């Protein structure tokens, strides 16, 4: 145990040198591009930026799914020759209910619904997404299975992430990070953004755009809209409503481009858009058939404008005008280009830090780190003499290795993370203290220097491992259950515990052994 071969010495020193090299990327840019140049990332609390936690409205996802299912069920029942029925979505129970008011058509209805289920379970290995049941009162229910619900939710979150990414990319934020968290949440990190107001505004809109016909024969002032018609708020006249057919003629998903611009005649801000081939064809058909009638451009259940069709629009191009200014026209163009969110997003957590506050935090962390490091080093020198100095060398190596490992994993350093580094350093010397105290005891028990060092190390080692294991476990838990900057704390502490075992036990021992080999005659300085 007290013998260090040249190879072992070389390995220990090599590890330290390698650690030093791995720290370099944090200090300078890569000299050549092919070198793996990994650095520690600064957390948003240190570099300034905005962290947003978004939640996908899963209820809306389910509601929408049930609405379309109800539509499909109505079509299916009608096709089966049933006239008197009532289909209602029941979002609370994740199902739709169908009441058939023609007693002799019950079997036909069941068959139609079974067909609907089969059509919705294609390509899934026969696993049913939907379950058909009949209630005691003779009505049927079609329930979404839990698997289908999860899948639908997953798809909605994935799609939302994609749209969120596109919308944020449009704003020119550098290096945004967008990731899923848990079942229904999305984390968005925006470095350098101190006021995420505009981005929150962009993300706060579903931006589902539809082109539908205005129901010109319906008076929007009656209490209940007739079937197939919605009363939607008219943006151009605040407080008024407009009757719009529920049927969507062209969907915003058929847009290929949208740009803000100014109308050359009026100077008014407008959004110019282009349809894809499907959209162009449909829009041409509709406009040709409805010259002289009004159609509505509906964005998130609000009518932006409802112009009268003057002639067939065949080029697949169009223009939306409606009380825009430069900003709202640009925002709408961005939203239309990026596409609609499958469900509304809500910001459930926001943490934004200005860059100067981050700089303050770095300064506070660095000063604490420097002072704390110095205090520990002086203490070890004063109370443990030469072996204390060895411990200090190990401590510096520990800091280097800790930074090296964090760089290698491209870990994120936060302010609590800096506190973690400092505490690790304070605790790392514990191993050296244990060893030194033990060696001292063994010397007093009358052992020879070599024997004392040997025994001291051996006996202290088990204690060191025991005492570090518990701290290690506690911080691994913190990493798994914590969130935000405090995870940075857990990371630095756990990595620091691991590296300190190496430096305190291997490096400090090697120094001690080398020193002893050169100074055999002296009593141990303990």
């Amino acid at each position, binding site marked *: 145990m007290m013998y260090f071969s040249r190879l072992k010495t070389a390995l220990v020193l090599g590890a330290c040198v390698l650690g030093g090299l791995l720290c370099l990327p944090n200090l300078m840019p890569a000299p050549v591009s092919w070198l793996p140049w990994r650095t520690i990332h600064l957390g948003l*609390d240190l570099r300034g930026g905005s962290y947003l*936690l978004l*939640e996908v409205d899963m209820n809306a996802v389910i509601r929408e799914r049930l609405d379309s299912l109800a539509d499909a069920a109505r079509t299916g029942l009608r096709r089966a020759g049933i006239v008197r029925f009532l289909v209602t979505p029941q979002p609370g129970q994740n199902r739709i209910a169908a009441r058939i008011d023609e007693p002799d058509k019950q079997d036909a209805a069941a068959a139609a619904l079974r067909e609907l289920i089969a059509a919705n379970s294609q390509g899934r290995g026969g696993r049913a997404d939907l379950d058909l049941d009949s209630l005691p009162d003779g009505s049927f229910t079609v329930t979404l299975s839990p698997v289908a619900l999860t899948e639908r939710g997953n798809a909605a979150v994935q799609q939302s992430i994609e749209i969120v990414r596109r919308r944020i990319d449009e704003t020119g934020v550098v290096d945004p990070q967008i990731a899923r968290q848990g079942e229904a949440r999305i984390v968005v990190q925006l470095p350098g953004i*101190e*006021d995420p107001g505009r981005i929150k505004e962009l993300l706060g809109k579903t931006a589902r755009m539809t082109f539908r016909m205005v129901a010109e024969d319906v008076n929007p002032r009656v209490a209940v809209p007739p079937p197939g018609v919605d009363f939607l708020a008219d943006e151009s006249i605040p407080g008024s409503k407009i009757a719009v057919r529920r049927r969507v003629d062209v969907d915003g998903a058929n847009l290929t481009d949208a740009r803000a611009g100014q109308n050359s005649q009026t100077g008014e801000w407008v959004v110019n858009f282009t349809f894809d081939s499907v959209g162009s064809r449909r829009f041409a058909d509709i406009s040709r058939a409805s010259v002289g009638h009004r159609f509505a451009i509906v964005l998130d259940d609000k009518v932006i404008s409802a112009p009268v069709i003057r002639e067939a629009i065949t080029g697949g191009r169009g223009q939306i005008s409606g009380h825009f200014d430069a900003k709202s026209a640009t925002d709408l163009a961005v939203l239309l280009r990026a596409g609609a969110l499958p469900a509304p997003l*809500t*910001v*459930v*957590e*926001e*943490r*934004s*830090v200005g860059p100067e506050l981050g700089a*303050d*935090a770095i300064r*506070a962390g660095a*000063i*604490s*780190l420097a*002072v*704390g490091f110095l205090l520990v080093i002086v*203490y*070890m020198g*004063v109370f443990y*003499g*030469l072996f204390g100095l060895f411990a200090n060398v190990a401590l510096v190596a520990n800091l280097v290795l800790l930074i090296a490992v964090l760089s290698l994993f491209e870990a994120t350093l936060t*302010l*609590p993370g800096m*506190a973690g580094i*400092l*505490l690790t350093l304070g*605790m790392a010397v*514990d191993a050296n*203290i*244990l060893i030194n*105290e033990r060696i*001292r*005891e063994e010397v007093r028990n009358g052992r020879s220097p070599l024997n004392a060092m040997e025994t001291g190390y051996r006996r*202290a*080692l*088990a*204690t060191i491992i025991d*005492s570090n*294991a*518990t*701290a290690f*476990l*506690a911080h691994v*838990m*913190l990493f798994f*259950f914590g*969130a*935000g*900057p*405090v995870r940075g704390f*857990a990371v630095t502490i756990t990595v620091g515990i691991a590296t300190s075992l190496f430096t305190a036990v291997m490096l400090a021992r090697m120094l001690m052994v080398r020193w002893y080999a050169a100074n055999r005659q*002296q*009593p141990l*300085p*303990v």
Partner: protein
Amino acid sequence: MSFRPLLRIVPDGTRIRFMRGRFFGVITSAIVSTASAVLFFYPGLNLGIDFAGGIVMEARTPGPADFGLLRTALAAQGVRESGVQRFGDENSVAVRLGVQPTEAGNQAMVAKVRAALEQAQPGTRVVRTDAVGASVSAELFQKGMLALGISMLMILFYIWFRFEWQFAVGAVVTLLLDVTKAIGFLALTRFEFDLVMIGAILTILGYSTNDKVVVYDRMRENLRKYKTMPLRDLIDLSINETLNRTLGTSMTVFLAALPLALFGGATLSGFAWVMLFGIVVGTASSIYIAAPILLFLGENRLRRDAAAPGKPPAA
């Protein structure tokens, strides 16, 4: 030449009869922990935004902040007067609001407060915004508590696995007493209890366990070495033998945490003060709580278990 230690914390051969003070130690600890438990319920912890939800915004005004103006402007948004306070230097203002009934309301409030601040004293910049909704804060709280609970359990199992069960019980009871005191300290000082504080408490737990493990290790070793020594003397001997190490390590961790408390800024200073408190409590409890518990649990059982075959050798 050789560079010998200049100072020792306690001289070699120190034999303090700690176990004489065991009743005093345990009773003092019980009283402090009970008081802490009372403080936990009244006045209770000052839950930070992580756990309570709500909004905290920090703004920098171009000149000295005009609090009259700012408070009036913010009162129109429903911010209480006490929610607008100086934060550090005279140009800095902190605005605090409770959690709003809905998530959207929380976000709308952030926008309103920002606008009101920028309007009341033109040139004011909001440099920090923390807004946590009710659902997230409830989750963070649950997860934080879960991290604490599971860590405690893992420590219990680890010590149980490595030592005899008496040691595990002794360590965990001591840890519980340590943690309650740290919570009492938090309630008393009104430091905000947030995720970073959970980090502090976990670090205290880890550190304190570490301390107990070292003393227990020595006791186990001595139980085998001195087969006939009365347990009381044996515990005293073990504590004295490890005293330099116990105090030494406490010193280094203390010295590392001290600058954080003094220069660490608003985020870290509360964390560091709790750490410092925990280090002192943890050191004291290693000597006066963890050891006497073993004495109460009984000599016979300890000796029988320690002598039983199949246990790992003493370190």
